Structure formats: C-alpha cells, structure tokens
C-alpha cells in the first residue's frame, strides 16, 4: 500500500469511527432513557455503555480542552455531529405556539409565528420542537420572548402579548375514524408587555 493510501486509510478509519460512535451513542441514549421497546436488561446495559461513547467523543473533557474543541469542530464541519434517527424510534409530538395580541382598545387578535415560504415553515416547526424539548426554563422563555418580539415588530400598536405554548395530541387512526380530531395540551404561557420584563404566567 502506498504511503498516500495509508494516510487516506487512517483518515477513513478515524472518520467512520466517529460516525459509528455518534450513531451508537444516540441509540444507546434512546435505550437508556426507556424510549424503545427493548426490555429492562437492555436498558441496564445501555446505561453502562453511555459513558464509554461519551468518553470516546470527549464529552467528559472540560469545555476549553483543545482536543475536545478540535473534535467538535471537525464533527460540525463534516456534518457528522449528530446521529440519523429521524422520526425514530417514534414520531415525536408536535408543538404549537399561539400569540394573543392585546390592543389598547381591548381588542384581541391571534397570531402564529410566521414566515413567507413553506421551506422556512419547516424550520419554524423545528424551532417549536426545540422549544418544546428544552429542559431549561430560562432558555425556553428566552426563545418564546424572541419570537414574541418578532410578532411585536409586525404589530407595533399592541400593548401586551400572551404567548401560549402547547403540545399536539394526534388521534390514532382508529380514534380518527370514531371522530376524534387533533387537540392541544396546554404547557406554558408567558405574558409580555412593553414596559416590564416578561413574567411566566402559568405552566402545567
């Protein structure tokens, strides 16, 4: 084997070890968090495997560690920073965000976070999923607040915006046949006004 080919082989092995490790880590995470149909013994094994995958990917190193940073940079620039479990193991719940726009004359209008094109619409759905899945209250509130600000710029006469965030309940096929339709479960509500800082009004 030529020297150049050996170098390519080494890079090939490194690249695919990373891809396989990331993909395995994602699947192990799903199993460990009881999101799959696998029984308990698999979950126990997955919990043991999780730290190994994390170790290979440098997750245990401190954030400023140069090796960790170099590795993360490579993963991002090669597009291999995440696994391939799209719509898996199950299709997750969707989310909806509705803004109640309160005008000085008491009028109330309803608005959804909107964009011009269907392609950008898919990205808004991704954003709502991120908000819904976030475990950090301040992060979730920040994102909803930023979205509310974008609506506010479109409607400068509004004095208060109430943002209501909910998860989507989809009927099963049999339930749909019996007349059940999609519904929403209330998750969070935030009130925003011009004068004061936003305050979380309610959550479930």
């Amino acid at each position, binding site marked *: 084997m030529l020297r150049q080919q050996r170098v390519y082989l080494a890079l090939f092995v490194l690249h695919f070890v990373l891809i396989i490790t990331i993909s395995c880590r994602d699947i192990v995470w799903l199993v460990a968090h009881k999101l799959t149909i696998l029984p308990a013994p698999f979950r126990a094994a997955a919990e043991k495997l999780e730290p190994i995958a994390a170790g290979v990917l440098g997750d245990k190193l401190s954030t400023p560690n140069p090796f960790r940073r170099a590795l993360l940079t490579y993963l991002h620039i090669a597009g291999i920073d995440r696994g391939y479990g*799209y719509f898996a193991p199950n299709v997750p719940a969707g989310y909806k965000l509705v803004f109640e726009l309160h005008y000085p004359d008491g009028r109330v209008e309803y608005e959804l976070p909107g*964009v011009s094109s269907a392609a950008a619409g898919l990205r808004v759905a991704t954003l709502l999923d991120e908000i819904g899945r976030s475990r950090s209250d301040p992060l979730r509130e920040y994102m909803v607040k930023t979205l509310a600000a974008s609506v506010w710029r479109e409607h400068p006469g509004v004095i208060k915006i109430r943002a209501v965030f909910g998860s989507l309940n989809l009927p099963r096929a049999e339930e*749909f046949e019996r007349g059940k339709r999609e519904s929403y479960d209330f998750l969070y509500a935030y009130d925003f006004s011009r004068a004061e800082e936003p305050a979380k009004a309610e959550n479930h």
Partner: protein
Amino acid sequence: MARWRERLRAFLFPPEADLWLGLLRIGLGLQVLFYTLSLRADWNYLFAGPGEGLIGRALPEALLSTESPLVPRLGWLIMLATRIGCSESTALSIAWWGMLFAGGCLVIGIFSRASAILAWFVHLCAAESGGFISYGVDNFMTIGLFYLMLSPLPDRYSLDQRWRKLPSKNQRLLGFFRRVLQVHLCLIYFFGGVAKCLGSGWWDGSNLWRALIQPPFNLIAPEILIRLKYLFPVGGIVICLLEISYPIFIWDRRTRGIWLICICAMHVAIGLTMGMYLFAFVMIVLNVAAFGPGLGLARGEKLVRAPAS
C-alpha cells in the same frame, strides 16, 4: 495478512471513472440552488441579529462559541462585512447571493473546487447560525458538500475540464471518495433503520400515520389517508427493513438496482406526501451519485468500445 491488506486496498481504492462525481456536483449544485431560492424571502428574517428577525442567530452562535469557537458561522461574515462598511442586512444578502452563485457554478462546473468550498462554507455558516431552525436537510447538505469539496474536482463533465484541458484525475482517489460516500450512506440507513426498529410505532404503522397527519407535514387530508390505514403497518415495516438491510443489499450487483430504486422511491414519497422536497432531493442525489453509476454492469463486466460495423 498481505492478502487482507490487498483486499482492503482493492475495496478502498478501486479505480473509478468520474461519472459519480459529476452526478454529485450537478446534484448538489441544484440542491444549493433550490435551498437558496426556497429561503429567498425569509433569509434575512431567519438569520438576522439580536432585535431583528424571527429568533436571531445570537443565541445559537453564543452556544456554539462555548462548544468550539472555530466552527464557521454567519457572525464571522457579518463582522468582516461591517468592517468594510456594509450593513448586516447587506452582508446577509451577499452571503445569499454567494451561495446562489456557488450553486450555479457547481451545476455548470465552472470553478468547481472554489464553488464547492464556497457553497459548503456559506451553507455551514447558515446551518450553524440557524441552530434551532436547522434540520436533517442541513446535515445531509453539509455531508455532501464536505465530500464534494474534498473530492478530486473537476470531473470531465464540467466546463472547467473542457476549457482548461486538465490532466485526468487519479482513478483510485476517485474510487476512494466514492467509497467514503457509499459507506457513509450505508451507516446512515443502517442506524436510521435500527432506531426505527426500536420504536413500536413503526411495527404497527402508527408512526407513518402520525408523520403524515402532523403539521406542517400534513399535505394529504387525514380523511384520505384513513382509507389507506391497512397499508400503514406494511409501510412501516417495509421502511424499517429497507433501511436496515441497505448496507447488505446495496453492495450486491443483483439487488443494488432494486434497493436503489426503492430507497429513492421512499424519498420521493417523503418529499411529495410531507412537503420535505429539499430533504428528499439531497438524499436522492447522494444515493444516485454513490450507487447509480455502473448499475447496469454485471460482475466483472467492463464498458468497452464496440467495433464499428
């Protein structure tokens, strides 16, 4: 040991023509054009700075900086542009036009390498700065453009090659980069299939139903879909099996055509029924470039010039 080494070399560095690379370049060029044009009206709105736009790029870029300050982002381009007196909006427009230009150049094959690098860089910046609004299509575009810019461009179908009459490329290197793409696709489908098999909803068809009726993917009315409810369990199982067995059947010349057609048909169906046109297109491009060329040839068969009759 020497025999294994030779086998490995033969697998990783097979001599290849550059048809696959031409397909990848043109396909990804079209993908970049479609991506850019589809976001034309919302580009500045999606990627604007704090206090403007939909969600802004400030938070994703800040989170990215804590992970690694070296990952490209739109903030770099904007900082550069503002230093020479351009506004943020102008800088974002330049980035959009730059990507459109790179996509066009890739399609016709002019400045192939530079265009691939430009398209990869600007798209990566947008995908990373987008953060919360990035989804699968961005991942696969990054993967495809990353391999394209590293591959031995230009291919013989490009204008670059016709005008500049460059020496032909190392066929073993061409074969190596095609193998990289092929192996990566096998891993993508295998792990995607494994993850699906672990969910109960793919075995009873409920995931297919949920995926098709969930906004914003609900292009087909559920009243129509419900008539096909008996097909959902079959469809779910077929998708799982198709994906998980892809790394086995795509290599065998006898089954490669069937698997390639089935996988492409699956992506066409995803595009048409769920409105994920960009996602469908990039997956078809990657599959066709990786496994399309040479599809009609039997094992050991080579293309030879027939004698004139």
